Every structure is written in C-alpha cells, then in structure tokens.
C-alpha cells in the first residue's frame, strides 16, 4: 500500500529497487525460456529429408528444362487464393509449358496448418510429393484444388488423398506413400527454404525470379514472352 508516495529519481537504480539477485534470477528464467523454445525448434527439424523422384529439394519442376522462362509458383493446397489462381491461370501455365516456352517449378509450401484442424497444408503437400514421384504432379494438383477443404474444416483424409492420386494416374505404391507421410520432411524443408527466400504470402508467382504481382493469364504470357528475348 501507499506505493508511489515517495519520489525516486530512477526506479531501476534506486536503492529501494529490486535486489540484484531478483533481477538476475528473473532475467535468467526468461532467457532460459527462450533457449527452451529454440531447442524444441531445433529438435523438430526433420533429421533426414527424402527428396521424391522427379523433384528437387526446393520443389517440383515440370516441363522442358531448356525453356528460357522459369515460372516459380509458391502455393499452399489449403489456400483459397491459390485455388483462384489455379482456376484463373492454371490452363495458361499448362499451355506455356506444353508450348515449351516455359518450365514451371511448383513449390507446394505448407504455411496454413493453423487454419486446419488436421494440418492439411502439410499433409497435402507431402501427398503431392508422392504424385511427383509417380510423375502425375500437375494432374494431382488440379484434383487437390477441385477438392479443397474450406478453411477451418477438416482436410481430406489419407484415403481421400489416395483415391485422388489413383484418379490422377498414380502407381500402386501411392497409398503407402501417403499413409506413411513419407515426404513430410521434404515439405517442411522446402517451406523453410521458401521463407528464407522471402516468401510472405501464397500464391506467389515469379517468372525468372521476378515476381508477377497480379498473375493473370495475360500478365503471365507477357512475362514469359519477355523472357524469350
């Protein structure tokens, strides 16, 4: 009681301030808490990252490797704006790839696990790696977007993810690949890499490293033809 009646010029250094032991103790507890968090973070990092066949550590390349334009697409299968991008510009991307003007690198990042009760971002990305291994990634991507769960709702089950894979033309090992979450480490590591590279939102579309702010079909075609020079 009656605190604040006496004036002390500098409360932090005044003699009546907290004992040095208290200061050191509290600061030590807080720093230790930070260390614990960092330790847990380090321990959670995937120990061994299995890169799926037909993919790289950063994503899934599709199309003519010699094409002059490279389209990087950072997208999350849980992200509604990514589905909109696919609906709007997916066909254009396919045409540019089929016309050998561009190759695509899909980066199926998982940054929206918090909007899903069952970590659908991560699970769907790992399942898409199984599709890459079976060479049906682009087909699988379209099926995943066609069946995108609403934010907040449970995602597709491993069984549903598997049956979409079979629809896309995946091989007999697909079910086991999905249910064992074989490429979970790949998803975590490519998401981390994308964040290190400055990814702030999905979808992010780049042509030869240059971000296309509003990736409409016209904007994509323009950027790709500019890259042919």
């Amino acid at each position: 009681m009656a605190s604040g009646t006496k004036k002390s010029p500098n409360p932090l250094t005044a003699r009546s301030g907290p004992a040095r032991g208290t200061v050191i103790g509290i600061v030590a507890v807080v720093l230790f808490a930070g260390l614990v968090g960092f330790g847990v973070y380090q321990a959670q990092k995937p120990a061994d990252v299995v890169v799926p066949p037909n993919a790289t550590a950063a994503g899934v390349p599709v199309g003519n490797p010699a094409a002059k334009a490279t389209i990087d697409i950072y997208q999350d299968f849980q992200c509604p704006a990514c589905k909109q991008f696919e609906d709007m510009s997916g066909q254009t991307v396919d045409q540019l790839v089929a016309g050998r003007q561009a190759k695509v690198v899909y980066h199926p990042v998982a940054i929206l696990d918090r909007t899903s009760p069952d970590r659908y971002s991560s699970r769907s990305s790992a399942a898409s790696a199984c599709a890459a291994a079976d060479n049906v990634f682009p087909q699988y991507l379209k099926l995943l977007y066609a069946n995108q769960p609403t934010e907040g709702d449970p995602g597709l089950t491993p069984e549903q993810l598997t049956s979409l894979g079979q629809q896309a033309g995946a091989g007999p090992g697909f079910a086991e690949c999905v249910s064992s979450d074989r490429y979970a480490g790949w998803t975590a590591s490519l998401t981390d890499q994308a964040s290190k590279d400055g990814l702030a939102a999905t979808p992010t579309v780049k042509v030869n490293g240059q971000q296309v702010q509003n990736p409409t079909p016209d904007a994509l075609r323009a950027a790709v033809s500019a890259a042919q020079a």
Partner: protein
Amino acid sequence: MTTDVDTAPPRTRAGALSLLVLAGRLVLGGVWIVAGALKVTDLDASVRAVRAYRLLPDVAAQVLGAGLPVVEIVLGVLLVVGLGVRVAGALSVLLMGAFVVGIASAWARGLQIDCGCFGSGGALAPGESPTYGLELARDGALLVVAVLVAWRPSGRLALDDRLGTPKGH
C-alpha cells in the same frame, strides 16, 4: 470498490494508482500468455513471421522466432502472479518497444505482411491488406502499460508481497 479484497478501499491517489497498475499487470500478462500460447504450437510459423520482417540475419530470426513464444508465456505468468513484477515489466518494455520498432519499419518499407503477433506466421490472408496502424496503436498502448508496470510495480495481489521480495517502494 468491491474488487479490492486485499485491503480497505483506496481513498488516496496512490491507492487508485496501485489498482490501475494491478489492472495493467493483468492485461499485459494476459496478452503475453495468449500471444505466446497461439504461437508456441507452431514454432516454424513463428520463425517465418520473424523472417517476414527481413530485419535480422537468419540465425537470429530462428532464435528469436522459436524463443519468443516461450518467453512471452513466462513473462505473462510472472506478471499475472506478480513475481518479479518490476523486472518482468522492464523486460516487457524492451520487447514491446522492439515490436513497435519492427512494425514501424515494416510499414515504412512497404512490406506486405501481417505482424505475426498472434501466430499467423506473418503471411496476410488472401485479399487482406496490412493493418500496421492498428497493430502499432495496440502495441503502443501495451508499451505504455508496460512502462507503468515497470515504474510502479503494484504489490496488490502479487506474490512479490507474500515472499517479501523488495518491489521498489
């Protein structure tokens, strides 16, 4: 004044101030606990949120992003139970001040990010615009509360009092 169970109703300015500080302590502590708890379940997202500011070298972003949620929870608990209030308040001032600087700098550089304060991982939701002004106002207000708590740590309903820890006055 029926909220004051510890002592007689405050009639002096000092008494009113100590109630105000108690409220500030609980608000600040509560915000710390909520902010930390929302982030601690996804430390990867917390690291991404720090990276999105593009202010720190990557190792520092990892340490800060992963350490911050646990630090926030601990600070919040200390403030709510009233243990080492002045030190916890001073640390809150430092941390909140750093957040204000970070958000202001993101705003000044025109970054399109979310502050990541409550576990959003720094990415804006689709079609969402940054709300730097609101975030700055909130953190600025909390900074004032933290300064108040550090300046006049209240013994009201605080463990410091029960343990006889010197609390400044």
